[in-house]
């Protein structure tokens, strides 16, 4: 008995301090305010309810309805996102609600980046700046502009410099505008700064070919792709285009056409995870390995104009660094046998020397046959070299610069503290930040002027020689903001011109008058409107230009990276970039494509090295380490990442922002302080030290010990992932079907349920795992389409993330040489769905067209269905997450505009899951029926399907014999997930093929 009472004594549930009256002093202001607000709302509701319960409110129609608006129908406008992605913006009754790709665009082919996909959230971000600030106080545009122009005039008269610091300039009109600015204020300097850019690649190209414009690569023609520390699927080059073109050659449908991917890298990038051969190399070895490959090719092919450099040889490099001889041999063989069809690509941010070697290797391989000179990458202003940045900051310190204008850039965060920008800014009289939201730089500025979101702006983007993408606004500025070009333009005009929303538009149109003339357009207006409609203008590209690089350039290269101590590779985050997207909750919550970590970054380290230092990551608790290089040091949690080279740490940048609003501030750890003034992303000679502290690092998926005999390859044993090699498939096309445990007839025979009838349509999906690279664009698109809430880091840790679609990642092999598989999982819409049988209130049922329907207004939240679902695709609203996350941050009024009006916004206590985009099916059906056509379902595309850069997802009507899906469900690579349960899922996975040399997968 005593024991029984003791039990209660220690349990917190009953013994919480409730002896006396509540201590109001200790209650937070929020909770009191919320209580009062709730009280008020309740009273108001009761009062209105009693007043006239029949009142249904008002219907507010337009006063003058714009002609192209139809209530309830979406309009699409072609535009461009700030990263240059050509997009279509979907608007409903004038508010943007979604992004899709521009299908007719020649280079993007309708594929957009994950950042553009999620960008709609930034438009409605309640923390965007709403009015101009002077020294932190609200001011008017007019007074701010007058004062700025006056002071710029004074500074210019004194002969001091006006520095415009900006990001990479992709816009020809913005470039012209900056030149005009320099025309008015004679001593203006224009300084484009980027942390991650193609600067090194361009420098190397210039050194070898004396041209600043390096050609695009036609990836779909390449048989062999070798990437050196380059994440072509997530952060180097233009990822959506590269995924699209590379995966064209990676499908079981045309297996004889398969390309082969080699990833030579220190870590495990998304590209490495999808590579046929992942060769892990410490970054200090890149130089000698690349030269050894070069020498080997020179010896074997004896090409004209090349000769061996130094005494680098494959045998030596492999022996000294214990590389995998088998994989290196395969690489060399493939390069030799695929001249003109193979290419070596070095990561954009790696040192110039490595790019030069790659250019020479590509020259031997005749890779110019893959080059698309017509579509070369252009640049309008050279991005500053690091010595130039240092010089600029030096002159700031000496007081030579009078005013600094930060045009939508955040150097206070992206420049390492070594530069001491903060100290230099103290000597500047006038600091102006043009920015969408407060950041580290705006906090140091006198004037903070709010600028428009890309969806509210005019503009043009030209990253390629032969194409200009146009940007047009689809909504009036929501807050009192102006676009940065218009602000600069109004300063150029001084007080002579009144600001209008059209100011930059006119300037832009003026610029294109010449272009229209060059293109022999009949009249400008029709040229301009058709260009705006299409979203781009096609221009003349570069001529083919094949010159031989001079060998002396290669001879002069020196080893850029030392191989000492612990090496560190700093990478751009595939989700939040260099930190510029960190206030986007959707991007923060999408699990990292490789590690599946949410809301954090980490130091990725190989399990063996971690063991040596006594570090571990278990049950989401990660050891915190101190990383130091010389006097610089940071602390950071670790992550055990299979495939990382020994004594190497991979860190993604963009995290640890100090001023990024409610969402981005303090998420993750800032590793930029480790960088020095060379801005090199590869560092060596670091030391790590165990601190003994633990940090909670949450992942949406863990993995078993790869060496455990019983757990090893569980996903293959349970047939979640079925894979094989291309050679295996070509010699035995039915090898997947032979592995099946039960045939369809046997499953039917064992079923106790009567089969359903599907008289009209029956919806199904097929996902080609050979094409899927795990980039998570589909997850972002699904979030936007289906009003998915953001739950936050802690709730993700509780397993309560709400994404309807997830990408599972599985490792097999060893922790040194892992083999990675991706598996997108969504509701499988089973014919014999186990969830349907157990719902006590019949909230989840089967539709006549094969959908597993979820009726929110009927759901009472028993969660029986989720317990009975073998795929864990059902998501439960444990809270009203919009209300709960960050104190209702995403519940604010303005975010109502974000919601897709065709999808119910779910609340607390309701189960939800993928619907196969039933709203799109319904719209297509209504459209077909109203035109009197038979509805076949050929026009229905789900959000994930539209967003998939690899075209891995196919959706359609099985009952339509002409549909692609009716062919794919019978494909001989097709399998269903956990088929043996007899629940007859409707998502067919096409088994993953790997293009390795031998038939063994290890």
């Amino acid at each position, binding site marked *: 008995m005593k024991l029984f009472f003791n039990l209660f004594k220690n349990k917190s549930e009953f013994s919480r301090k409730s002896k006396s009256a509540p201590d109001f002093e200790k209650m937070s202001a929020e909770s009191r305010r919320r209580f009062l607000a709730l009280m008020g709302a309740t009273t108001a509701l009761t009062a209105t309810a009693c007043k006239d319960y*029949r*009142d*249904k*409110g*008002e*219907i*507010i*129609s*337009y*006063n*003058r*309805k714009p002609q192209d608006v*139809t*209530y*309830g*129908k979406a309009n699409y406008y072609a535009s461009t996102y700030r990263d240059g992605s050509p997009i279509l913006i979907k608007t409903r009754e004038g508010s943007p609600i979604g992004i899709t790709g521009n299908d007719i665009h020649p280079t993007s082919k309708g594929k957009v980046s994950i950042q553009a996909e999620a960008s709609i959230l930034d438009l409605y971000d309640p923390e965007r700046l709403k009015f101009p600030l002077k020294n932190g106080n609200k001011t008017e545009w007019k007074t701010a502009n007058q004062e700025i122009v006056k002071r710029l005039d004074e500074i210019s008269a004194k002969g001091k410099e006006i520095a415009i610091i900006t990001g990479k300039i992709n816009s020809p009109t913005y470039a012209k505008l900056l030149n005009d600015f320099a025309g008015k204020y004679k001593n203006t300097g224009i300084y484009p700064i980027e942390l991650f850019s193609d600067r090194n690649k361009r420098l190397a190209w210039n050194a070898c070919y004396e041209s600043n414009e390096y050609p695009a690569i036609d990836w779909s023609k390449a048989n062999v792709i070798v990437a050196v520390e380059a994440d072509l699927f997530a952060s180097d080059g233009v990822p959506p285009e590269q995924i699209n073109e590379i995966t064209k050659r990676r499908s079981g449908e045309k297996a004889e056409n398969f390309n082969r991917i080699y990833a030579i890298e220190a870590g495990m990038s998304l590209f490495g995870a999808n590579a046929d051969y992942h060769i892990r190399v410490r970054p200090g070895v890149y130089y000698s390995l690349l030269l050894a490959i070069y020498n080997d090719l020179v010896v074997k092919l004896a090409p004209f104009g090349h000769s061996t450099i130094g005494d680098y040889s494959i045998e030596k490099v492999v022996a000294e660094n214990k590389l995998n001889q088998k994989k290196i041999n395969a690489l060399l063989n493939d390069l030799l046998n695929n001249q003109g069809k193979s290419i070596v690509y070095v990561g954009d941010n790696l040192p110039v020397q490595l790019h030069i070697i790659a250019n020479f290797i590509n020259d031997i391989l005749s890779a110019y046959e893959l080059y698309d000179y017509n579509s070369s990458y252009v640049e309008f202003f050279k991005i500053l070299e690091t010595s130039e940045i240092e010089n600029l900051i030096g002159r700031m310190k000496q007081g030579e610069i009078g005013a600094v204008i930060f045009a939508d850039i955040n150097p206070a965060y992206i420049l390492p503290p070594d530069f001491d920008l903060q100290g230099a800014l103290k000597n500047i009289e006038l600091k102006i930040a043009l920015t969408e939201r407060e950041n580290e730089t705006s906090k140091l500025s006198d004037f903070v002027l709010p600028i428009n979101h890309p969806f509210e702006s005019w503009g043009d983007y030209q990253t390629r020689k032969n194409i200009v993408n146009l940007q047009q606004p689809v909504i009036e500025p929501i807050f009192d903001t102006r676009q940065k070009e218009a602000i600069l333009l109004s300063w150029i005009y001084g007080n002579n011109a009144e600001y209008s929303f059209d100011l930059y538009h006119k300037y832009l149109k003026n610029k294109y008058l010449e272009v229209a003339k060059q293109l022999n357009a009949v009249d400008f207006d029709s040229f301009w409107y058709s260009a705006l409609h299409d979203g781009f203008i096609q221009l003349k590209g570069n001529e083919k230009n094949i010159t031989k690089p001079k060998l002396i350039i290669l001879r002069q290269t020196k080893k850029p990276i030392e191989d000492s101590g612990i090496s560190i590779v700093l990478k751009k985050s595939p989700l939040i970039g260099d930190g510029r997207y960190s206030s986007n909750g959707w991007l923060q919550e999408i699990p990292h494509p490789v590690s599946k970590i949410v809301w954090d970054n980490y130091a990725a380290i190989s399990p063996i090295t971690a063991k040596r230092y006594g570090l571990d990551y278990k049950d989401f608790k990660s050891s915190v380490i101190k990383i130091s290089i010389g006097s610089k040091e940071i602390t950071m949690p670790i992550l055990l990442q299979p495939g990382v080279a020994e004594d190497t740490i991979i860190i993604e940048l963009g995290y640890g922002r100090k001023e990024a609003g409610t969402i981005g501030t303090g998420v993750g750890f800032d590793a930029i302080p480790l960088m020095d003034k060379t801005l090199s992303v590869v560092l060596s000679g670091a030391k790590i030290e165990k601190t003994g502290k633990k940090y909670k690092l949450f992942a949406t998926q863990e993995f078993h010990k790869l060496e455990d005999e019983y757990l090893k390859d569980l996903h293959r044993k349970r047939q979640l992932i079925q894979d094989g090699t291309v050679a295996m498939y070509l010699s035995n096309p039915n090898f997947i079907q032979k592995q099946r445990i039960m045939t369809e007839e046997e499953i039917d025979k064992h079923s106790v349920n009567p089969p359903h009838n599907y008289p009209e349509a029956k919806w199904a999906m097929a996902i080609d795992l050979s094409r899927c690279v795990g980039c998570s664009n589909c997850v972002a698109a699904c979030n936007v389409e289906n009003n998915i809430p953001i739950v936050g880091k802690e709730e993700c840790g509780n397993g309560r993330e709400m994404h309807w679609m997830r990408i599972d990642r599985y490792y097999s092999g060893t922790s040194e040489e892992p083999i990675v598989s991706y598996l997108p999982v969504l509701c499988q819409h089973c014919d014999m769905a186990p969830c349907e049988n157990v719902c006590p209130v019949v909230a989840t*049922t*089967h*539709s*006549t*067209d094969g*959908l597993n*329907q979820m*009726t*929110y*207004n*009927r759901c009472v939240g028993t969660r029986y269905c989720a317990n009975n679902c073998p795929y864990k695709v059902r998501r439960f609203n444990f809270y009203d997450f919009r209300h709960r996350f960050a104190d209702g941050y995403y519940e604010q009024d303005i975010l109502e505009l974000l919601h897709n009006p*065709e*999808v*119910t916004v779910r609340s607390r206590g309701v189960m939800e899951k993928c*619907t196969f985009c*039933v*709203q799109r099916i*319904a719209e297509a*059906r*209504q*459209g077909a*029926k*109203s035109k009197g056509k038979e509805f076949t379902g050929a026009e229905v595309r789900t959000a994930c399907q539209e967003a998939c850069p690899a075209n891995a997802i196919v959706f359609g009507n099985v009952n339509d014999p002409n549909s692609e899906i009716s062919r794919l469900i019978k494909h001989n690579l097709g399998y269903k997930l956990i088929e043996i349960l007899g629940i007859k899922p409707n998502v067919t996975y096409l088994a993953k093929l790997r293009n390795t040399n031998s038939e063994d997968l290890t």
Partner: protein
Amino acid sequence: MKKEFLDYVLKVRLPVTLFVIFGAFAVTYYVARPERDGIGYEPEQPIAFSHRLHAGNMQIDCQYCHTSVEKSRHASIPAANICMNCHSVARKDKPEIVKLTKYYEQNKPIPWKRIHKVPHYAYFSHQSHVMQGIPCQSCHGAVENMDVVMQVNSFTMGSCIECHRNPNSRLPKDFPKMKSGPVHCNACHR
């Protein structure tokens, strides 16, 4: 039976039981009145627009004003500029038209009172129904005879389903035999 017990039953149990029975009946009756579903709701509109005059006497097609009924799930309440197509010339001096002109010129939307409403989680499509030839009147009643529009049918799930199961019960007598409508959840709820 003891007297006290009988007394207790008559004094306490019987009245309580009766109260509960009648109370429940009264509440159910009150809640289940057709009026609770909005039938008979006839609010005063900001402008006394008469459907009898426009749709009835003058025979203007419903779709002249409710433009998107064939194109989208919303029938759409006309924007003020549609009224002004005629009334920038016709009957300019009448008091109600003066009101309308004022709204139009001040660029303010007219705050029409809402009469028919399905809950926000039900996605009713005018397009699907109208394009099948179902007359507007089968749900909205004879609007062309109303000076002030009133709700005549209930807009509950029950009435939707009833018609979807047996469409001709609600349609005019001479209407051709119709296929029954979908009754799975996703037909309306998503």
